[in-house]
């Protein structure tokens, strides 16, 4: 099967306009006859479902939490990018496009990224109209700040809670449509499988998390907006219920999985403190606007700090190594995330790390407090400082914050074409669940942009184009044998898990998987380490199916929910490692120690690896089949990324 990305012809800046003017439409009377399923209610899912409802389609939307408002988009802190150029600092759609392509280390599709930059401005307009309380200047106009990987101020924000406010905006729009009756909401449901009838996605099997019953739902098209698979690493900044299972079932039913090894490690998270720890907490990238990152210049002093004999504040100014400012004078503390994360690891590996674990660096606001005053710093970052103090029990206005990289986002995901359709007809993927816009590294404040772009401004068009051919297909019955079979398979899987009654909890096995992933498939990867990881994950997977202990409780059963997700993580981890092993280059968040420049930067190999790796499932015991979508760069020049 040859991958067809369906990119419209013509100049880059006219492709989307051309698509929209030529796409097929569905008239209002026919829209009422068509059903769409949306799985997930984060920025992408909620905005898509609300928009479909407004257009007049029948929408069924599903979320895992008790309310659509709790999807993990809510935790995004820093902001959302747009090319408004309100700051008059030279921004434009073209610049946002170039920054995103470059930030992604030239592994994203030009046409998709350009469209993203193009609709970014509509998103801000839309959100303001919805009453999202963005930060404003005294003039009453919108305020901006800067983020990593950019030299302009193009990030819009609502205190340190931008994701929350944007999600509540989309949740409001969704609630409006639920009230109107165009959208039916199903909360506390988890997707267990996608149902394919005659080669097209026609429904899903979900588990009702309260009753434990399996339920069937049908539609003319299915949208997967279920986020990323970062929790394969166990510890991450993702929410506890975030998982990759919905996308993984689609993969097993024929949708290709693209660039799974492109995982993002965020540089500014609160360091790990103990074995019982369940998740990591992010400190917004916006802190790097004013915070300066450093470690002691003298390894001996770092040792004394680790042993608790001296404190950060005992290190005089001239003995501090502001290593990002030293290595990257042009971007300083605002280098992209992958660069900042690796630089922190490099210092800690070299013995300059702080905290009792040696796995932390300082993020210091002393200079900002002197320059702006404590009150101004408090106004900008107050809630983040409070959160830090609550977790670490130290006051960041007095002692510098300690930070360390943690798994945060997955650029990889279901392969989609320009229409956000997977390789299975009628099965779409939006937001973090797809692979399309961020290449090998996502820039800060771009996830919110992409989620809302997909949901408000891309899917409403491309979905219509798909459904225009489906107006003669009547309501799909859930009594079809395909539904029967899919449900039966899920039931068998659940029965099998419940019957094991072993001696390890789900979390114990998940933690072990996380350790393999973090050590061997994390920030720095090697051929040997990856080969070992694949073996170890396979063994652990076998152990899981012999040793996991899940209580056989009827109805609500949290341990069973976790077990089903971890069973998938144990398969996903292997694919991530395989993809990382295949990609003999370093790019963005994928760093292979064998491929680096003399000064330790990622060394791409454009001649051999300028492609999207899309995997086709070949059964549980076989290696997946690799398909390559060549990436053509006609509008940007391929260069070694340089933030110096």
């Amino acid at each position: 099967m040859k991958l067809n990305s369906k990119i419209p012809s013509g100049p880059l800046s006219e492709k989307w306009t051309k698509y929209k003017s030529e796409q097929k439409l569905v008239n209002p009377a026919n829209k009422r006859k068509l059903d769409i399923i949306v799985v997930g209610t984060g920025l992408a899912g909620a905005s898509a479902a609300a928009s479909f409802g407004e257009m007049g389609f029948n929408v069924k939307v599903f979320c895992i939490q008790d309310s659509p408002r709790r999807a993990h988009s809510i935790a995004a802190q820093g902001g959302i990018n747009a090319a408004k150029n309100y700051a008059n600092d030279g921004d434009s759609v073209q610049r946002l496009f170039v920054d995103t392509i470059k930030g992604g280390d030239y592994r994203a599709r030009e046409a998709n990224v350009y469209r993203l930059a193009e609709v970014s401005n509509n998103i801000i307009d839309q959100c303001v109209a919805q009453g999202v309380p963005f930060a404003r200047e005294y003039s009453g106009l919108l305020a901006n700040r800067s983020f990593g990987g950019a030299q302009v101020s193009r990030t819009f924000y609502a205190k340190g809670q931008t994701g929350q406010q944007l999600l509540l905006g989309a949740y409001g729009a969704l609630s409006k449509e639920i009230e109107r009756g165009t959208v039916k909401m199903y909360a506390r449901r988890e997707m267990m499988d996608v149902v394919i009838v005659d080669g097209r996605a026609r429904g899903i099997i979900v588990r009702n998390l309260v009753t434990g019953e399996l339920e069937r739902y049908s539609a003319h098209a299915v949208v997967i907006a279920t986020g990323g698979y970062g929790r394969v690493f166990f510890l991450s900044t993702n929410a506890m219920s975030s998982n990759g299972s919905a996308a993984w079932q689609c993969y097993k039913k024929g949708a290709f999985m693209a660039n799974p090894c492109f995982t993002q490690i965020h540089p500014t998270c609160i360091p790990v403190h103990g074995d019982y720890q369940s998740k990591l907490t992010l400190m917004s990238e916006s802190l790097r606007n004013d915070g300066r990152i450093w470690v002691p210049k003298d390894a001996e002093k770092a040792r004394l700090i680790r042993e608790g004999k001296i404190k950060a504040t005992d290190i005089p100014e001239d003995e501090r190594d502001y290593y990002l400012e030293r290595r990257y004078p042009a971007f300083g503390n605002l280098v992209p995330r992958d660069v900042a994360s690796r630089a922190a690891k490099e210092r800690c590996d070299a013995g300059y790390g702080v905290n009792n674990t040696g796995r932390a660096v300082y993020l210091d606001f002393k200079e900002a407090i002197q320059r702006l005053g404590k009150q101004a710093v408090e106004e900008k970052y107050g809630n983040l400082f409070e959160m830090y103090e609550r977790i670490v029990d130290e006051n960041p206005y007095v002692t510098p914050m300690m930070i360390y990289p943690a798994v945060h986002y997955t650029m990889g995901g279901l392969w989609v074409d320009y229409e956000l359709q997977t390789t299975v007809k009628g099965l779409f993927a939006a937001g973090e669940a797809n692979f399309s816009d961020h290449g090998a590294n996502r820039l800060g404040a771009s996830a919110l942009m992409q989620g809302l772009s997909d949901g408000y401004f891309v899917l409403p068009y491309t979905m219509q184009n798909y459904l225009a051919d489906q107006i003669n297909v009547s309501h799909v019955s859930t009594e079809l044998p395909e539904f029967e079979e899919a449900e039966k398979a899920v039931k068998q899987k659940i029965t099998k898990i419940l019957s094991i009654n072993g001696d390890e909890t789900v979390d114990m096995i998940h933690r072990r998987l996380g350790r393999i992933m973090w050590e061997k498939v994390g920030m720095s990867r090697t051929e040997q380490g990856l080969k070992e990881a694949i073996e170890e994950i396979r063994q652990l997977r076998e152990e899981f199916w012999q040793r996991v202990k899940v209580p056989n409780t009827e109805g609500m059963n949290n341990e069973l929910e976790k077990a089903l997700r971890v069973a998938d993580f144990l398969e996903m981890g292997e694919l991530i490692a395989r993809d990382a092993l295949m990609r003999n280059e370093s790019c963005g968040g994928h760093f292979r120690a064998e491929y680096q420049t003399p000064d330790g930067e990622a060394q791409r190999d454009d001649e051999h690896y300028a492609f999207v790796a899309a995997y086709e499932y070949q059964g549980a015991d076989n290696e997946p089949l690799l398909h390559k979508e060549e990436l053509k760069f006609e509008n940007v020049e391929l260069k070694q990324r340089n933030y110096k």
Partner: protein
Amino acid sequence: MNIKLKIWRQRNATSKGKFVEYQLNDVPAEASFLEMLDILNEQLVLKGDDPVTFDHDCREGICGACGLYINGHPHGKFKNTTTCQLHMRKFKDGDTITVEPWRSEAFPIIKDLMVDRSALDKLIQAGGYISVHTGGVPDANAIPVNKHKADLAMDAAACIGCGACVAACKNGSAMLFVGAKVSQFALLPQGEIESEDRVQKMVARMDALGFGSCSNTYACQAECPKGISVSNIARMNRHFFAAKIKK
């Protein structure tokens, strides 16, 4: 540290619940309250017992999923702190900690410490939004917004929808939750246009869903983990009466 837990256990909405005591030893002081419950649950699973069910998700104080009555206070007694952001260092060795679900008629129990808060979603559905469609909106800077008002709108919008205000209220009132949403939009020119309709619809829905009345005890403000102010209730009342008089 070693602690004793008294936890409300209830199989499902219809069965009778009771407190069950658990002794938990060697709890790390750096663990969060929910991580402490994870440790308990791991022990229960290994013993073959049913683990304690509770709602939680982001574990960084923003999703609003977690909510437990801890020693008689929603989210515990510490100010501006959600349960997931409460750490065991705030307790002492040998403490007995009582953990209960939200107690409110509007929030029926699902299992153990997990309750059904869908009534809050229904309140928002009644009108807690600006009725714009996707697309066709003016440029974001076309309508300037007074910064002080925008800041007040943001403070009101910080509500995480956890339901602590309802659980804290002796009348089970949702006035702080609704007041915050009504205020957010009433303060912005974009939302002001339909503010009269909005406040009336949301108040009517609040009554229909069985939430109690407000008797100004301010327990909601005292227990809100996001510090939402009762001045939002006053603002809502003002809009509500203004709309009534006009009618």
